[in-house]
């Protein structure tokens, strides 16, 4: 369960990304990763509702896009979409393939509200939205 650490890194990248845009609320964060990244989407969502607390993104939605695991055969150059534990060429069956995608852990996009509200409480002064979302 390293998804909490991943979320903390994610939020720190988000804060860096939005810094030039002033006092605006983060509405949505889009992340993309493959199943060879070792991240479980459901655990990431749960961890996010905890980690976002008291940050600039404490009411943000997390949208997760999955990147397929794709390998390219070193022998016949065929590209195959495969399961994370079967990195084999779909045409000739060899394991001598290279990974084309599927191990990424990416912050893809941040959606910011255009409403600038400098007076709004931020960070630790802001009430936490966590309890509203966790069943």
């Amino acid at each position, binding site marked *: 369960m390293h998804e909490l650490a991943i979320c903390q890194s994610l939020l*720190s990248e988000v804060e860096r990304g939005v810094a030039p845009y002033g006092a605006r609320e983060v509405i949505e964060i889009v992340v993309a990763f493959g199943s060879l990244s070792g991240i479980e989407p459901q655990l990431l969502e749960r961890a996010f509702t905890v980690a976002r607390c008291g940050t600039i993104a404490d009411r943000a939605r997390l949208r997760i896009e999955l990147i397929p695991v794709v390998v390219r055969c070193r022998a016949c150059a065929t590209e195959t979409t495969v399961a994370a534990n079967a990195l084999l060429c779909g045409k000739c069956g060899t394991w001598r393939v290279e990974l084309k995608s599927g191990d990424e852990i990416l912050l893809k*996009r941040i959606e910011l509200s255009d409403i600038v509200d400098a007076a709004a409480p931020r960070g630790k002064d802001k009430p936490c939205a966590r309890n509203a979302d966790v069943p």
Partner: protein
Amino acid sequence: MCQECGCSLTPDDVHVHHANGTMSVRPASTSIDVLHGILHQNDQAAAHNREHFRRHGVLAVNLMSSPGSGKTSLLEASIDILKGKYRIAVIEGDLETENDAERIRAKGVPAVQITTGQTCHLDAHMVHDALHALDLSAIDIVFIENVGNLVCPSAFDLGQNANVVLLAVTEGDDKPAKYPVMFRVADLVLLSKSDLLDVLDDFSPRKAEAYLRTLANPATVLQVSARRPETLAPWIAWIEEQHAGVRHSAASHSEHGHVHHHHPVA
């Protein structure tokens, strides 16, 4: 900004806005495309550690496995063989206790214990802090014994030269299929406690290796037993080969007059 009337809608909203002939149907927002590695800061710290190791010609080996597969015992037995020839240090990662570091220190080599509390893996910043407790100019090989866990440690680059993953023969030989993320990044797989193969007929080294290949991983697979030092020869030879490679690249780099100044990681 909308080209037609100067309102602040994003391109996605524009057709909705103008089709309806009304102001925004949803709150105006700005999209920032990032496409950036989430573990960017860890990767930077790892690159910094790697530079420390490279500059000092130090081989850094990241040892990973499930809890109890014999990482510390393997280190103890390996230190006995290596310490006459190499200056060794160990960084120990555990949730709690200094026990493993004390076992290593009893062998006469420096050990830094990182206690991670509730964190299930080491990251590059933790290793960087630990490096400050070691004099790398007086070390040839650093073993980093990661937290016993076959899932989380694989996501965090520490700046190591090589990942060594242990699979004890008391575990299932299909572990590579169950934990593909970990076994895919292994540069060497050690089947540990191999002395027990004589009495365990349900672990097939051949199957374990086949599962590893199914992850497109060409890594060498060796059988080792910390209780039988004579089994460690191929593993020791692998370390020596890796160390020679690191020394060679450090030497050829310094011929070009490169100097790296140390800047603490922010």
